[in-house]
């Protein structure tokens, strides 16, 4: 157990101390425990990361610290001390002052944290006015704050409304507001989760820089292990409202001592792992529901190492401190944790694919929308081939045209006249209504958000049965038999058929969506960010499922994701999109290992990595330009770190074949790119 040291020094040693904190939510007339005897200390000036799957209580910790729980939530035990001050004992006014002066929060969605109808300047000065600074002095302070978060031209930003700023800018403003009163404790709750990788990198850089300048301690909450590993000194792993492991970030992530941490780390596709090199590991089972009675170790049900002792005796937090720092693990067998057997065997039957005629051939595809009378070219001149059983990964920032391209292929949106889409040698009509039934069933989609994709009024049986009826043309006994197979192939069971989507977890819903897409034996399945809403352990299971289905059914995927690790795991071929254009197209390994297009280079550099060997980071300035008014010449020249001169502004480079099957749209010749990028990697070493 942690020794809860007595606190009452002038300047408390710890910025935040939670001792034996228990929180419960009242649901249907019963108190359900969410946090269980949580002990956690954050030292002055320290950045502490809190990780865990959704539902484990991370955000509840953040809300509890400022006593901001929802109405049905209550603190059932323990103490919170903020800067030596007992938060539990504060009355209304003192609590308000503590919230205003010593602790600040930044939430996931900056769009919701800012008031949409008040100018940025007003929202910022308001904070200072509360502190008694008014008029010019307040607006000077506000401008200084905006400068501090690296916003260029603060006076003009002060005049704007939140919706006139991009997501990254909004989050900077939110951070500026949080820092306005120089808090001693800054709580960041998934601050970059909704942002593009390039913007996320910027915001994380900013937070890292601010840490140098400020004295604030940080509680950093994230489901993204890589982000936490880059940002935090120490990390705590939360499971079912209990701290299961804690220690210095690099030690915990490189030498985990709790099976849950071990398993969580194994779920991530790492180090360029690919589907033909083995399946990802998964965590079987589910997080215990909130308020469940937990007798032994909370993770025992899902742990292959668990024995009777684990199921009956709650493990204490074993102290495993060594020369690398103080660390704790709540596991009876912490010394064996890394020997946790895999939940999913890694072996795959790698089937060498015979070369075959492309299943899909796209040539000269364009899509122009009209936006306030101006043409908006969402997709411009895209041509590519896809072979049977192959996965094409589509990457690019939001606004690059990935989803529009997918919708053009599916016929949900008609393309401009001129381009052609051929499926197995036969041209597809631009509109879905004009395509044959066979063509429609041959190309299906797994949407990003299963809540939107599955009709919430229908049972799973109805959803899948209808798909089989329409897409496979089955009915009666044959349909029932096939339904059974289909359900089994996505590893659901009969029990799941009777329920409605809302009764299933996110991962199970996505399995239903996948089953629906596979109902008519499709040739191509478009996967539009199918795992972005899921926890890593569930994501791993879905990725494995997609890889298994592909090797069994010889289906081709068009896989859209902003998570490059995930794309790399599943893809054979990558297309990098920017403003609707293909900037780079080639075999997955070549695109990832480089030499690559400067944009690809920047995208890869922006991804936070768990096994970070500090490489030169390339940061893109600003936002993706508007597609109504794209830059002249090479559309990327405005942000390109490797721009060579006026030619980039005047001439659009062709998508030239740099190597057989690998094309790059750049004026810099391929050997030169190779030289530049090699230099960049070795330089800082």
């Amino acid at each position, binding site marked *: 157990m942690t020794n809860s040291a007595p606190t009452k020094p002038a300047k408390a040693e710890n910025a935040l101390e939670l001792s034996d904190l228990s929180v419960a939510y009242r*649901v*249907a007339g019963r108190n359900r425990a969410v946090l269980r005897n949580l002990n956690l200390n954050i030292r002055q000036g320290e950045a502490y990361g809190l990780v865990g799957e959704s539902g484990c209580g991370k955000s509840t910790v953040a809300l509890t610290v400022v006593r901001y729980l929802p109405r049905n939530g209550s603190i059932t035990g323990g103490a919170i001390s903020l800067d030596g001050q007992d938060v539990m004992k504060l009355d209304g006014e003192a609590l308000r002052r503590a919230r205003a002066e010593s602790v600040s929060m930044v939430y996931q969605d900056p769009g919701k944290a800012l008031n949409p109808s008040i100018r940025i300047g007003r929202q910022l000065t308001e904070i200072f006015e509360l502190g008694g600074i008014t008029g010019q002095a307040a607006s000077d302070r506000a401008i200084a704050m905006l400068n501090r978060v690296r916003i260029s031209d603060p006076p003009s930003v002060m005049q704007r409304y939140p919706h006139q700023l991009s997501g990254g800018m909004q989050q900077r403003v939110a951070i500026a507001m949080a820092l306005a009163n120089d808090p001693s404790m800054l709580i960041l709750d998934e601050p970059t989760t909704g942002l593009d990788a390039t913007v996320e990198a910027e915001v994380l850089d900013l937070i890292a820089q601010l840490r140098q300048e400020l004295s604030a301690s940080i509680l950093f909450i994230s489901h993204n292990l890589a982000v936490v590993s880059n940002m935090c000194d120490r990390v705590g792993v939360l499971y079912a409202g209990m701290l299961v492991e804690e220690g210095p970030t690099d030690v915990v992530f490189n030498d985990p001592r709790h099976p849950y941490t071990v398993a969580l780390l194994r779920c991530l596709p790492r180090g360029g792992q690919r589907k033909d090199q083995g399946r990802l590991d*998964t965590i*079987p*089972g*589910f997080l215990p*529901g*909130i*308020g*469940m009675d937990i007798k032994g170790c909370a993770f025992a049900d899902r742990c292959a190492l668990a024995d009777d002792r684990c199921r009956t005796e709650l493990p204490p937090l074993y102290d495993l401190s060594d020369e690398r720092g103080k660390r704790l693990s709540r596991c009876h067998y912490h010394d064996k944790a890394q020997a946790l057997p895999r*939940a*999913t*065997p890694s072996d795959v039957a790698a089937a060498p694919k015979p070369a075959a005629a492309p299943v899909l051939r796209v040539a000269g595809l364009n899509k122009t929308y009209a936006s306030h009378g101006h043409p908006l070219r969402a997709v411009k001149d895209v041509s590519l081939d896809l072979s049977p059983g192959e996965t094409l990964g589509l990457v690019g920032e939001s606004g690059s045209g990935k989803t529009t391209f997918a919708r053009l292929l*599916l016929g*949900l949106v008609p393309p401009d006249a001129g381009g052609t889409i051929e499926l197995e040698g036969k041209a597809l009509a631009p509109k*879905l209504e004009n395509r044959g*039934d066979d063509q*429609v*069933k041959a*190309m*299906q*989609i797994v*949407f990003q*958000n299963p809540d*939107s*994709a*599955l*009709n*919430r*009024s*229908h049972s799973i049986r109805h959803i899948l049965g*209808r*798909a089989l009826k*329409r*897409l496979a043309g089955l009915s009666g006994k044959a349909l029932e038999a096939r339904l059974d197979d289909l359900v*089994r192939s996505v*590893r*659901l*069971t009969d*029990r*799941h058929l009777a*329920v*409605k989507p*809302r*009764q*299933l*977890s996110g*991962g*199970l819903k996505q399995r239903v969506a996948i089953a*629906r897409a596979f109902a008519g034996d499709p040739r191509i399945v478009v996967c539009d960010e199918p795992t972005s809403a899921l926890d890593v352990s569930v994501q791993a*299971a879905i990725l494995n499922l997609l890889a*298994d289905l592909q090797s069994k059914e010889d289906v081709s995927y068009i896989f859209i994701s902003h998570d490059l690790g995930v794309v790399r795991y599943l893809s054979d071929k990558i297309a990098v999109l920017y403003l609707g254009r293909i900037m780079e197209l080639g075999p997955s390994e070549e695109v990832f290992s480089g030499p690559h297009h400067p944009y690809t280079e920047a995208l890869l550099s922006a991804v936070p990595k768990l096994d970070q060997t500090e490489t030169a980071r390339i940061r893109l300035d600003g936002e993706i330009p508007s597609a109504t008014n794209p830059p002249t010449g090479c559309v990327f020249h405005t942000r390109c770190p490797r721009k060579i001169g006026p030619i980039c502004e005047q001439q659009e480079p062709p998508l030239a074949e740099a190597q057989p099957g690998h094309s790059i749209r750049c004026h810099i010749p391929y050997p030169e790119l190779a030289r530049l990028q090699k230099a960049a990697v070795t330089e800082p070493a």
Partner: protein
Amino acid sequence: MSAVQTPSPAQDDTRRRSPLAEVLFSLMRSRTFLVGLFIVLFWVACALFGEHFAPYDPLADDIINALAPPSREHWFGTDQIGRDVFSRVIVGSRDILTVAPLATLLATVAGTALGLLTGYFRGIVDDVVSRILEAFMAIPVVIVALLAIVALGTSKATVIVVIGLSFAPIIARTVRSAVLAERELDYVAAAQLRHESAFHTMFVEILPNVIPPILVETTVRLGYAIFAVATLSFMGFGIQPPSPDWGLSISSNYGMIGGGFWWTVLFDALAIASLVIGVNLAADGVHGALND
């Protein structure tokens, strides 16, 4: 690798109720709804079994006791030909409680169909149909009623059709906006990717998901429909004498308020008011339960 994982449905210890059960549960805890329901059920009971517990025959005149004030024999007094007002108020709920719900039902069915069409097809269909509906909404119910009665003659059916059709555009508007939001969801795209017919997509895929706003709108409309029926019978379109009816009764007696015979009008008016309030309270409860 088949036995690797068989996830179970949401396995938390509280069995989740179905959405319907959840709504019923929260309705039963809503005081507003329960009070409204009680009032409505009271009048429904009067409509169904009124003559069994009304103290007098509502049609029997008794000229000698005409215009008697409220007393022990006649709680609400008697009207100008001596009929018992109390009995007439009780039995008078019958017509209004058949005509108003049927009119609302007609409005809901027609409005839902129109709302689905305009919301689903959008574009030119929406533009044309919506403009026609708006034009229709601009004409007062009473004018429409007058025209219809001239054309079709006075009958309960005419009243039902007139009120039903004048309320349909309002319901159509609510349904349309719900459908517009629903249409953007991916399950509609998924239906298109199965080549489902427009009819299937509208009525099987979308309709079940827009039931809650329809339900709220219907209960609110029912309150207005009761009021409209009472107004029309007050004006003489609709239920014909000597059937006891609140609106009709007010219209034939209101001239006598000046003579001090207030009881011939007041109790009918209170009956209308209480029914409208009851329905509105219930509607409020439904709205609350569905928008939690």
